[in-house]
């Protein structure tokens, strides 16, 4: 596969962790046994929730950029998103998922971000 490298940092630098992940991903997709199925479903649902959370957060940031929100409204919005962020971290932990696990390729949906 070396011939596919047009430009790469020495020893792959920050990308070195990729190779095991690719094998993992394929293995997960292929072996849909009942135990991993539940975790897979949680992963999918949380991925979508996280996508929506990020979308809403971005929209909030744009609204603030555009002005027109009072300090009080900004504070309340900020607290809401901070709380959501914290809850997501808790849910991830509960299902033994990392932040990276919630980065599933959702196809065209993922391009919303």
């Amino acid at each position, binding site marked *: 596969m070396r011939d*596919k*490298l*047009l*430009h*790469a*940092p020495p020893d*792959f*630098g*920050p*990308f070195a962790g990729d190779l095991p992940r*690719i*094998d993992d991903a*394929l293995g997960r*997709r*292929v072996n849909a046994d009942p135990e991993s199925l539940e975790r897979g479903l949680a992963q999918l649902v949380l991925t979508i929730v996280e996508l929506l959370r990020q979308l809403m*957060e*971005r929209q*909030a*940031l744009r609204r*603030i*950029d555009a002005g027109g929100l009072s*300090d009080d409204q*900004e*504070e*309340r*919005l*900020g*607290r*809401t*998103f*901070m709380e959501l*962020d914290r809850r997501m*971290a808790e849910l991830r932990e509960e299902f033994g998922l990392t*932040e*990276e696990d919630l*980065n599933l*390729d959702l196809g065209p949906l*993922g*391009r919303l*971000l």
Partner: protein
Amino acid sequence: MIQLYAITDNPGPPLPDVAPLKTVPIDGLAAVCAPAGETEASPEMLWRHEEVVEALMADRDLLPARYGTRLEDEAALARAVEDRRDELAAALDRVRGAVELSVRVAAAGAPPSPAVPPQASSGAEYLRVRAHAEASHERTANAVHEPLAALSRASVVGRPRPPELFRAAYLVEREAVEPFTAEVARLQDAGAGLSFLCTGPWPPYSFAER
């Protein structure tokens, strides 16, 4: 069962001798397929699929089929292609003479800082930290993307996966692969603290449908 490798022009050059390939002609297009074995999906089989598509790509333009695209028989394949004939022909025109290059950028050296911002003391502060992170992210992405997009026919910017800061696929003319790679090297030299990974040429997977 047969598996589909690619949609290409008909007539085309002779098929490479890398698999028991067969073409199914459909109104100016050809679907290249082979009998599907009973083997399980595996990384090796995925690379095998890629090898066949790349052997085809060596001397023709094509729309690559995703690994694992299987159909009952040639008649089913012909029906499936006929249904989308114009759409596929237009897509084939879009990728004509070009290949896909993948570019990913990450912060070099130090491990990425956690995406979770430091405990903010107030809602307003939380939003400020987020806005700041987003703006810096956007600056990085634009600085990388704009010069590369200028050298390509089309691009698809993906959602970066941590620790990446940026990922995109570019549809690049075959003759422009070298200048494109040189530009990546230039950005690498210029970009303080960024690490670039550029791979290809790949079949135009990211541009096969739109």
